Each structure stands twice: as structure tokens, then as C-alpha cells.
């Protein structure tokens, strides 16, 4: 194995409630790369995101995942976050009663603490978040509300991007972040992602549609079907999929 990989997924099988969702999936991501995962509904796209983020219900039954050379599967969800994995959820959960700003500061400082840094005081933190709100064209009033509580679909996704920019991950997983978004929200979110792109940071963009990839140009495109990657290529593969749909993949495989 080459040591310059950020993420190395080897032949992973996973199941949820005894149903097999990943069936021998392999994928390698180097620092700075943007990978897009595309595929029909039920192919296992969200399962891959959930396995990487460490959701309990998804049991890895075979294979291994190395992240920065470390066994990812040994880590709790919060440890993964501390080490730079961030998942933007497809359906961010609503948590009434938990203040958004307070939540973000808790998350931000938990990561700093885990990395031996001093927690940030409330005031400078708020200034930082407010600035990010500006970049995302978000009304800072959102910070005063309960976490995702009563947010519209677009507002929730912006809130996810706000957290991503705040936590500055090494590997950001966007789980169908484009679903249900209008064109303005799509633009804002793509700008956020593009502004974070650099030679160190990698992205795994999970999407059903090519549309998002007009804004976020991937280095690699993989097609996921029936729990594994069945085809890989560059950005042109996405265009091909857009044109032909997913049916031909099944025929070809």
C-alpha cells in the first residue's frame, strides 16, 4: 500500500439490519483529490458515507479501511471527526432545544481539545462564525435557533456547509448534498466547497445527478452499483451517465 493515501478502502462488505449493502467495495483517495460517487438509488451510496462516518447500524463484515494509515473502523464517530472526517448529511437531524451556535462551539472546541489546543472563547468564535455566515449568504439569525429545527431543506444544507467550513476537515463527505436544492443554493454550496479545495483536503461527493458536478469538478468519477464500484473514470464519465442514465452500466457489468 502506498503511504501517501488519505483513505484506503479495501474490499469492504457491510450490512445494515442483516441486509448486505456493500459487497466488496474498494476505493483510494489521495490528499487534495475530489472523488465523485454516482449511482442509481439503492446502490449503496449512502451506506458508504455512513460506514465512513461510523454509524452504529452499519456493520462492516469484511475488508478494511485505513485513514491516514490508521484503522478507521477502530475509531468512534467523534474520534473520526477529531481526525478530520466530516460528513455533510443528506438529511440533517433536527434537535429542538439545542442552540445552533452553542452546538457549533461545542463541536469546534471538542476538536481543538482533542488536538491539544485551547478552546476558543465565545466572542471570537461568534465573530468567526458570523463571517462564515456571510460567505454562505446565511442570515446569522440561524445561529440563535435550535439546531436544524424547522429549517427548510436549503437552510439545513447551508448549515451543514457552515459546519464544514468551521471544522476544516481533511476529508469531507458530501452525502447527496444537492438533493432538493434550488439553483441558488446549489451555487452557494458549490462555492463553499470550491473555496475549501486545496492540495491537502479531499472530498468525496456522493450524488445521484451530474448537475452538482458542473459546479464541483471532480478528479475522478466512480459508479457504484449493487454495493461495489463497477466503473471508474474522469469527469467525462459523469457526462456519459447523464446522457445514457444508469441502465447501460448494468448491461455492461
Amino acid at each position, binding site marked *: 500500500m502506498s503511504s501517501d493515501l488519505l483513505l484506503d478502502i479495501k474490499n469492504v462488505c457491510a450490512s445494515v439490519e442483516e441486509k448486505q449493502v456493500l459487497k466488496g467495495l474498494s476505493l483510494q483517495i489521495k490528499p487534495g483529490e475530489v472523488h465523485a460517487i454516482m449511482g442509481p438509488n439503492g446502490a449503496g451510496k449512502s451506506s458508504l458515507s455512513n460506514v465512513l462516518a461510523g*454509524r452504529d447500524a452499519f456493520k462492516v463484515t469484511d475488508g478494511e479501511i485505513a485513514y491516514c494509515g490508521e484503522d478507521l473502523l477502530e475509531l468512534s464517530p*467523534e474520534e473520526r*471527526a477529531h481526525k478530520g472526517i466530516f460528513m455533510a448529511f443528506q438529511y440533517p*437531524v433536527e434537535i*429542538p432545544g*439545542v442552540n445552533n451556535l452553542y452546538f457549533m462551539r461545542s463541536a469546534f472546541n471538542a*476538536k481543538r481539545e482533542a488536538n491539544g489546543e485551547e478552546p476558543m472563547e465565545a466572542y471570537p468564535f461568534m465573530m468567526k462564525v458570523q463571517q462564515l455566515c456571510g460567505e454562505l449568504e446565511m442570515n446569522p439569525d440561524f445561529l440563535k435557533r435550535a439546531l436544524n429545527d424547522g429549517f427548510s431543506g436549503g437552510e439545513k444544507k447551508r448549515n451543514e456547509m457552515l459546519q464544514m467550513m468551521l*471544522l476544516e476537515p481533511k476529508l469531507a463527505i458530501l452525502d447527496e448534498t444537492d438533493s432538493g436544492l434550488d439553483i441558488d443554493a446549489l451555487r452557494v454550496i458549490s462555492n463553499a466547497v470550491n473555496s475549501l479545495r486545496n492540495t491537502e483536503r479531499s472530498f468525496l461527493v456522493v450524488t445521484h445527478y451530474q448537475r452538482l458536478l458542473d459546479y464541483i469538478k471532480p478528479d475522478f468519477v466512480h459508479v457504484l452499483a449493487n454495493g461495489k464500484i463497477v466503473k471508474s473514470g474522469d469527469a467525462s464519465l459523469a457526462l456519459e451517465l447523464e446522457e445514457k442514465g444508469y441502465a447501460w452500466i448494468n448491461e455492461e457489468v
Partner: protein
Amino acid sequence: MQVASFSPNWQALLDQPLISDALASWQKAARAELPELRFPSRRDEAWRYVPHRRVPKLKPYAEPSQVKPRYDHPSLEWDVYRLQCIDGVLISSDVIKGVRITPLSKCDEEQSRFVAHELSEKDAWIRLNQACLTHGFLIEVDAGIKVEKPLVIIDHTTSQVAKQCLNARYVIKLGEDASFDVIMHQSSDSDVLVNTVSVIDLGQRARFSSLRIQQMHSEALCFHQQEVIQGDCSEAHLGQFLLGASVSRDAVHVVLQGTEARVELSGTAFPRTGQFANIYSHLTHGVPHTSAKQQYRSIVHDKAQSVFYGRVHVLPNAQKTASYQHNANLLLGQRAQANSKPELEIYADDVICSHGSTTGQLADDQLFYLRSRGIPENQASALLVDGFAGVTTDPWKDSPAYDFLSDAIALRGKEE
């Protein structure tokens, strides 16, 4: 169980001094009736589940000769008025313009008639309160007076009155267009039984809020029954937070008898191991165009028990009633128990009434979301528990007691 059998020296309880001449005949009437009464039990719907077997033998109240004021009360840092009552003895009371605060013992005939208000809920505990009153106040806010700072009522008992039975009564009357806020902090550092009755009478367009925080000793018993009568266009906001006591029941009965009257209620019961906490709310929508919103929660530790009993009663002709009630219960320990009994009793048709009740544990997806952002599991649970209670404390954001209340809840979550 008959009341008389609850005290070894029952006569001593009834021989306590009467609180005043003006209230003497009213008290005597209750003393005559009391020995025949029976404490409410499982058979009484409103008291179902309350573990009466844990009520100790009642010991009469003896006024301590010396009482020290509390200099450490958190409200000393708040911008508020204060009324301090320790072990049933009045220590101090701020002067507020347009507000008369009269100890029950000093109420004249006319005031006493008001103090002797007959509550619509009747039971042996209310009669006991009437018969054996130990302390209390009549607070009258003149018409048009808008009191800018809340009044904190500190009702604290120390070990000087340990094991005794104290009966307090607070009667608050707001004139037309008056505005008044009360923060009632009830605490104790020993195993007393405090049986309190509050009566709130709101004139037309009056605005009132009462935030009640109960932090009694873990061996103490605490019963509180409150009746709120609302006139036309009046507005009330009531909070009940049960953060202590071995057995506690906090009851509120709001009678919306003026049109356009509005009430908002919120509260959290938080019994710890072995404790019992019961919130009882009863709304009577008596006339057309009244509205109510209720938000109650309970957080239940291992072997603890919470009870929520909410009655919404819409009388015939009370059209255009809007009444919403929600109750959620969080079970944190293996043998935690939550009982919920939301009731709608509706005799008018043009109404919108709803209630919801949920009982469960912390949601896995919420926990996962927080953890995926790097918040460690125990901190994430604590955050969710705070957030769960936060829905009931949020309406009190502008109260000077808000931080104190939030911290008290957070601390109670961490104590175990």
C-alpha cells in the same frame, strides 16, 4: 387513608395557633371537617400514581425562635425585588410602588375574604392547608400598575423545622391592566413537608408571569396547588420546574373565564433515583375565544417516576377555543418510569384542540449527528438532555432567573 391517622398527635396539629382573627372562622371550619376526610388515593384520578404511603406522619409546625436570612440566595445578583420567608417566618420584603404585600396574619376582614377563596379542586391537602396555615401573603397589584422588575419569593426551610408540616398560601391579585412577574423559589435543606396553595386572580387585560422553581431536599415532600383565574384579555405565563424533593406534585388549574384570555404553561419534572415527581395541569376554557399552549417534559433517572396529567376541559359554548398541549418524557435509567395522561374533554364544536405525548430515550440519530461533529458521547447526551428540557425553559429566556434555571437543570443531569 383518613387524614386523622396520619398524625400521632393529631390534636396538636389542629391546636396550632390560628393565623388571624379575620381568618379564624374559615380555618375552624376546615379543622372541623378535616379529621373525617381521606387523603386522595389511587382511586382519585387527579392523584393517581402519587405514592401516598411515602407521606410521613405529620408533625405540627413550631415557629423557630431565631431565623437567619439567606445571604447566599442567587437572586442577590439579579435585578429584582425580593420577599424572603425562612422557616415560615417573614424576613424581609422590598417595597414596590403600587403593590401591597400583606402577610396573611395581618389581612383585614375584606382582604381575608379574598384569601379565603374556595378552590374549585377540593381535597384533603387543600383543607389541611386551610386548617393549619403557617405562613403566606396577599399580594395586591393596583390597576394600571406595571411592575418592571420581577418579585422573587424565596420560601426556604432549614433543618430547624425538619419533619414538620408547613402550610403556605400565596394569594396574588392583579387589577385591570396591571403587569407583574413573580419568580417563586422553593427550597429546603431538610426533610420537611411543604403543602402550598396559590391563588392568582387576573383582572381585565392584566399580564402575569410566575416561574416556579422547586429545589427541595431529596427527602422532603412538596405539594403545591395553584388556581389561576383569568379575566377578559388577560395573559398568564406559568412555569413549573420540579428539581427536588422525594415526592412532589405541582398542580395548576387555570380557569379561563374572560374572553380573549390567553395562557402559556411550561415545565419540566426531573426526578432522580427513587424520587417521584408529578405535574398536573388542568385548563378550563369557560368562554369563547380563549387560548392555551402547554409544553411539559420530564427527565427520569433510574428507579425514578414521573407523572404528567394534563386535562383540557372545554365547556359548552366556549367556541373558538384553541388549546394545544404537548408532553414528552425521557427515560434515562433502566427502571425509570413515566406515566402520561393527557386528556381532552370537549363540549363545544368550533375548537381546535390537540395533544401529543411521547415517551422514549435519547434518539440515536441525534446522538450520532453530534458525535460525527466531534462531540464526545457523554457530552453529546448531556447536550441532548439540556436541549430536551430547553424546550420548556426557552420561554423564560428573558427572566433574570433563566441562567440559574438552566444551570440547575444541567447540574441535576450531571449529579448522577
